[in-house]
């Protein structure tokens, strides 16, 4: 204990986190299992089985898986293309800096950018209509899960570009040359060397993207205004009293979200350990 002032700062930080981060999270767990009279009950978790909330969880999971998968594929391809040794340098700088901006351009402004573009009165919708392509007549809607997946891709893809740059940079051109000298085709190289080496980073990128989509709220709120139930918008509906249900239901929904995040993180740490072991052996 040579520096009491040091312990003061460490203690203040830990106390602040305990009071305003850990305690509220624990409060959710407590609140979700006690009724108004203080009796232990599972009734609020049973409510999650109702059609409305089941749909919300299904929508949220589908949207997160779809946008994370499209983000990993498109983001990975973009990083791959711009990091090719033959690619001009200015391209790399341009893509990296744009990705940093787009990954942080989310929430309400992003929703309105897409409403202005391919909303029912959007500019692009109108232009396509003039050349005979009626998007909304063909069954497309921005205010649907498909629409949300497209909008989410706008921050998911650049996020993946940023995450995957170090992984692609770590791939030595020498590996490719060695494989070619041994007579491997491009397909064989990617199947046997490239993808196994990249797998752990792609997987952890997917997890991060899943989490960012699963907890996103502003974009969905501004776009769907409650027409499509997602877990986040259902929680906010409970909190702001827009639906007739007890606050405990909001707590149970929140605990549901936390459980999903914990499962996904645990699965990823197990898988990435396995992938890493496999990479070392090959």
């Amino acid at each position, binding site marked *: 204990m040579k520096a009491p002032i*040091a312990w003061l700062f*460490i203690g203040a930080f830990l106390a602040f986190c305990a009071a*305003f*981060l850990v305690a*509220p*999270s624990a409060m*959710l767990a407590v609140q979700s299992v006690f009724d108004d009279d203080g009796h232990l009950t599972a009734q609020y978790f049973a409510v999650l089985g109702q059609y409305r909330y089941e749909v919300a969880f299904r929508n949220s999971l589908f949207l997160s898986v779809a946008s994370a998968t499209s983000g990993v594929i498109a983001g990975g391809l973009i990083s791959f293309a711009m990091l090719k040794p033959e690619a*001009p340098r200015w391209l790399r700088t341009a893509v990296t800096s744009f990705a940093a901006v787009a990954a942080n351009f989310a929430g309400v*402004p992003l929703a309105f950018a897409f409403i202005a573009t391919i909303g029912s*009165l959007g500019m692009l919708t109108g232009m396509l209509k003039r050349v005979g392509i009626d998007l909304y007549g063909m069954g497309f809607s921005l205010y649907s899960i498909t629409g949300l997946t497209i909008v989410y891709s706008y921050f998911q893809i650049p996020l993946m570009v940023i995450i995957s740059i170090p992984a692609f940079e770590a791939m030595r051109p020498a590996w490719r040359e060695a494989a070619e000298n041994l007579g491997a085709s491009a397909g064989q190289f990617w199947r046997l060397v490239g993808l196994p080496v990249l797998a752990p980073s792609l997987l952890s990128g997917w997890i991060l993207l899943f989490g960012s989509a699963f907890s996103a709220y502003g974009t969905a709120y501004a776009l769907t205004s409650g027409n499509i139930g997602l877990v986040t918008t259902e929680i906010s509906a409970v909190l702001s009293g827009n639906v007739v249900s007890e606050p405990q239901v909001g707590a149970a929904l929140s605990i549901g979200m936390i459980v999903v995040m914990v499962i996904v993180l645990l699965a990823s740490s197990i898988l990435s350990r396995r992938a890493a072991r496999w990479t070392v052996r090959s």
Partner: protein
Amino acid sequence: MNRLGIGGWSILVLAALFFGVPLVMTFAFSLWEGGDSYGFSAYQVLWHSPRLFEAASLSAELAVATVAAIIVLLVPAMIFMNLYAPRLRPLFEFIANLPFVVPAIALVAGLSALITGPDWLVETPFYLVIPYFFLALPYAFRSIDVGLKSIDLQTLTEAGLSLGAGMGQIVTLVVLPSLRSAIVGLTLLTLAVAFGEFTFANVLLFHTYAVYIDELGEHEVTGAAALSVASFLATWLAMLGVMYAGRSRTAK
């Protein structure tokens, strides 16, 4: 310029379309004045809107307060943890990753269940600084951690002590200046995150910038589009600053 191959170029061209078209279209939409007339009237209306000014200055104040909270609460705690209590590192890392497991909407549910008073705390918009702190925590933690790893904290401190400096002098004169670029980077990121935050402000009913855009969008979509363009440009400026701060760090 054909060395990338058809595959490489088509990926990049498709990406440029996907990311460029919405920006161009949003800007064009914000100029629409109804019918066939285009102009800057949406921007002029916004410029003279006192409510926009109020919302934006509230968000700016909250963003600055959040940066202050990070610098006062997190930065010294991390410096001292590295110096005196490296055993606490796993606990710090656990806390820094917790906001990823507990989504913002769940944290706001927990906060409103647990903290119902006192009024001086929960009724001022500055209450939002508490959740914003946790929103910025994972980024800020990583940024300071990288900064601390790039300097030899132990040696610097011992050198300072052997020259007769006190702990306060060492932190303010040696450690903080060498963390300067990390702190500039985290400041800009925190400003960007806190300024555009929507979840907490919307649920707790405070009129911040993002809440204002959402309300505006319900009746004046061109105005909301104009503000979206402005937000994109502001994010761009903040990220340019972050990158500039990062570059000066590697140049040293």
